[in-house]
């Protein structure tokens, strides 16, 4: 495999239940330093694909490699190290509700061990500052946060270990247009400061247009098109035409 790919999915066969095939012969790769966006209709299995890539679900066939490590075949040590090189932003944040904001961001750092408490504090405060939160927000519990703040704290936690791959599941879902614009700018800025690859799932055409380097379209159980936005947009598949060709699509890409 080439060192350029942080994620490599080859000939993936993914089933739900006994007989229902969700993905067949699916090929996908995410290169170092790029933003790869996964689009697809509802029920096409985008989130399931993310779960397979994250190693939360075992595929029925094919191979999934993240940083060259196969979740099924790698040793426990390799897998742990690969996991520490990636960060995940869950759709609903998935913050630990019993821990404060500060403790949530500090959690992966403390689990990794090897840093003293002062260093952890410095990194947590730096991360909170990066996502435009004040140090005093650290004392709040997740239940007291607004939707936008949950996303930002969750992003800070995902970035805590300086990951080389960030996976975003619907990063702007549930945010108002202004907030989602700011969230996209935030990710853009962070990517300029720290080089990391992004794999994201989104339905938001503006987010897609602003961030993405390449797009992969998931339909009919596999990736039907993958490439730069202008290459993919002309694909004749019905989903692609509806998704990019509708009024919303035209408006988003004209600007």
């Amino acid at each position, binding site marked *: 495999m080439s060192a350029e790919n942080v994620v490599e999915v080859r000939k993936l066969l993914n089933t739900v239940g006994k007989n229902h095939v969700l993905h067949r012969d699916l090929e996908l790769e995410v290169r170092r330093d790029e933003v790869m966006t996964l689009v697809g209709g509802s029920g096409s299995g985008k989130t399931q694909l993310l779960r397979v890539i994250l190693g939360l679900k075992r595929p029925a066939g094919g191979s999934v490699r993240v940083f060259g490590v196969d979740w099924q075949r790698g040793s426990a040590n390799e897998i742990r190290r690969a996991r520490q090189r990636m960060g995940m932003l869950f759709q609903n944040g998935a913050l630990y509700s019993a821990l404060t904001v500060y403790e949530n961001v500090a959690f992966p750092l403390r689990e990794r061990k090897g840093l003293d408490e002062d*260093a952890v504090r*410095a990194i947590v405060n*730096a991360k909170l500052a990066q996502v435009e939160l004040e140090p005093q927000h650290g004392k709040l519990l997740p239940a007291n946060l607004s939707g936008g703040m949950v996303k930002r704290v969750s992003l800070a936690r995902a970035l805590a270990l300086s990951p080389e791959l960030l996976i975003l599941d619907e990063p702007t879902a549930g945010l108002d247009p202004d907030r989602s614009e700011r969230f996209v700018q935030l990710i853009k800025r962070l990517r300029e400061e720290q080089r990391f690859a992004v794999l994201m799932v989104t339905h938001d055409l503006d987010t897609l247009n602003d961030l993405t380097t390449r797009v992969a379209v998931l339909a009919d159980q596999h990736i039907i098109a993958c490439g730069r936005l202008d290459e993919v947009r002309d694909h004749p598949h019905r989903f692609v035409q509806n998704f990019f060709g509708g009024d919303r699509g035209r408006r988003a890409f004209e600007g």
Partner: protein
Amino acid sequence: MGEAAAALEIAAGGAGDGPPRVRVHGEWTFRGLAAAKAALARQLSEIERHPARELQWDLSGITALDDAGAVWLARALREARSIEVPERHQEILRQASEGLLVPREARKGFDPLWAVVALGAAGINLAVHLRDGVNMLGQLAIDVFHVARQPRETPLLELSAGVFRAGVTALPVTMLVGFLVGIVLTYLSALQLARYGADLLVINIVGVGVVRELGPMLASIIAAGRSGSAITAQLGVMRVTEEIEALSVMGISITSRLVLPKVIALAIALPLVAFCTDLAALVGAMLVAKFTLGIAPAAFMEALPRAVEVVNFWIGIGKSVAFGFAVAFVACHYGLRVLPNTDSLAVGVTRSVVSSITCVILLDAIFAILLRNVG
């Protein structure tokens, strides 16, 4: 990808008369740091022998920098004056040094009046619980009145499901416990009574004890552990997932839809469970009486109605109705107070079980005093 070039640092004496220069290069990442930890610590102590202000730092050789590396550098550079940093690393270093400057949370000092404060807080807490409990009791009464006027709104499905879950499925464990307690109790009293030759009194003691006290008590303690905790957890999760709010928004009364069926179901189920527990305990007693005292089961059965007045049975059944109501009521009370986080859920379930058992024992004591002249 494995070759993470260790973070290295050369302290070269200044060229000629110039100040000493420290050149930093390599991979300043968490893994790079971990690989070169010992060497770095040694070099740092060497560097610290020079006056910090005179040192010249040159960071242009850094190939990779992450937060762990930036924090390390920010600490070492705290007093440095002359630093050469490449453009792309400036931001992360600035953030790390600012992060270090954020003051630590001040620890709260010792409050000499903490005991008074804690006592007062506990008192207020108790008052709040009582107020909310009375509030819910009143709401329940209104709901019962409402359902009585419009019997078609009786939540029959929830009721029967509740009776099945709290009653039928609880039978194996409660009956087993009842059987064992019957055996233990009979053994103990048989040993004592045999000394005085009052063997037949064992039927009085065990009969009254089981039917009037132990049956309902055992049944309700197990119900508190099984059904009470389940009710609290269910309502608590509904709070976490905002289902309770969704019900309120649809204009559906939470007490009538969620609390009332559970409370009534347990008030119906618990007497039935207590009755079965009584039976199991008496069977256990009969067995022991046969083997230790030689009382035949037929004689036991014959003596039982004479030894235990029927009113005792009804007192036991009546108490179980009250206990069932209390357990479900307390469980609902705590379930609706759960806050939307996992910690609060755990605390709520624990408190619910402890409080409902306490409540049952308290009620039992009250009944014992009120009914002391009956039976």
